[in-house]
């Protein structure tokens, strides 16, 4: 294939990324966030108007530094994802990045990622590290750049529009042969963070690795998630967002909605469908449909029926 043909097919793929069902959007209704297709929201002004103002957008697994066959230009697909966010009829109040900002924790990768993320019209950015962000020998590159809000612990909380946000780290205390771990110290911190909050406070928890067991042989879960659930169960609306597995998986359990975002970089195989959780190579025309972002909106009229026909790509 000639280079120009390759460039052209990339352009076509990127156009598809911008317009072709790249992600999902959440609306808060009856206290429960529910995802709908983001592309549909962006395309239909009528529909997006009914969604209300987006509260935040989740970007995940940008893997800046990756350059292999599954996606030789992850900077370009992040740029298109950013354009998708910037093109929303109303801008979200904040952006959440659920980790694996970089591929190899290299300073130049972090620098490029930050440079690109600064193009977001929404400037408030909250992050958690992925395991790809903490592989440098001193585990300092991520924290030098993003450690301040948490006093370099990595986990922290904040409030916005009546929603309590909790950022958790489950990629640092890994157990050989096991899953991600939050650890006793972080769980104790969360216990005191949540203690005085009313049951009716909507809670959004975000971390890099899934906070429920999706596929343990590939480490797609968090070993001490049961202790986390014990702290969250009393709340009327809990939304747990993560990345890590580069595909959408969702579970609703009582008042808890678990949702895994797509990557903006490359897809991964479904659980158990390969030797391991590596990059999944797909035909160029399919790539854009497997990358994307997640957005969350607060509905002004929570009783609307709009959410009942929610679908996930």
């Amino acid at each position, binding site marked *: 294939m000639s280079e120009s043909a390759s460039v052209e097919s990339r352009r076509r793929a990127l156009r598809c990324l911008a317009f072709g069902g790249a992600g999902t959007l959440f609306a808060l209704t009856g206290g429960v966030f529910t995802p709908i297709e983001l592309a549909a929201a962006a395309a239909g002004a009528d529909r997006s108007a009914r969604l209300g103002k987006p509260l935040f957008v989740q970007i995940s697994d940008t893997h800046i530094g990756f350059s*292999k*066959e*599954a996606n030789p230009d992850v900077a370009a697909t992040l740029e298109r994802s950013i354009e998708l966010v910037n093109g929303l009829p109303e801008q979200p109040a904040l952006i959440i990045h659920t980790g694996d900002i970089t*591929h*190899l*924790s290299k300073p130049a990768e972090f620098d490029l990622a930050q440079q690109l993320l600064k193009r977001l019209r929404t400037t408030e950015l909250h992050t958690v590290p992925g*395991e*790809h962000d*903490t*592989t*440098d*020998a001193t585990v300092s590159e991520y924290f030098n750049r993003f450690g301040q809000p948490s006093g370099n612990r990595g986990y922290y909380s904040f409030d916005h529009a009546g929603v309590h946000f909790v950022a958790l780290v489950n990629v640092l205390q*890994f*157990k*050989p*042969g*096991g*899953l991600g771990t939050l650890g006793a110290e972080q769980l104790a911190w969360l216990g005191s963070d949540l203690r005085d909050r009313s049951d009716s406070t909507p809670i959004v928890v975000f971390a890099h690795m899934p906070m429920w067991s999706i596929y343990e*042989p*590939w*480490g797609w879960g968090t070993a001490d998630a049961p202790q986390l659930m014990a702290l969250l169960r009393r709340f009327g609306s809990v939304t747990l967002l993560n990345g890590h597995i580069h595909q959408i998986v969702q579970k609703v359990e009582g008042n808890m909605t678990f949702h895994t975002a797509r990557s903006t970089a490359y897809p991964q195989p479904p659980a158990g469908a390969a*030797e*391991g*959780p*590596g*990059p999944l190579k797909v035909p160029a025309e399919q790539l854009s449909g497997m990358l994307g972002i997640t957005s969350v909106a607060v509905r002004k009229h929570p009783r609307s029926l709009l959410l009942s026909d929610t679908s996930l790509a």
Partner: protein
Amino acid sequence: MATGSLLPGARAKAARAVMLALLATTLPGLANAQTPDATVVMARDFMFMPTSLTIKAGSTVTWTNEDEEPHTIVSDAGLFRSAAIDTNESFSFRFDKPGTYHYACSIHPRMVGTIIVQ
């Protein structure tokens, strides 16, 4: 050793390592020889091969990544820790003291291995 799930290449490599180990123990002249293959661990298909490697004190082990995903080599006891090892990159560590050293990949914690230093 569970070789059932290994690819042919990995199995051949493992067999070669076993043969070298046998040669080393049966031929006095080779007992102290440094055989390059014997101190190389491959990360391939999300496994360390060989999973367990026995070396003499003072030997250097080199891990090479043949996967498209980066891997790391992190000692359970905190003795050594590599940065991310990308495809076809390597990491080396010299083991001076006899003992049993367990390690894992911090990106894929199911990937574990052991270095036995005699």
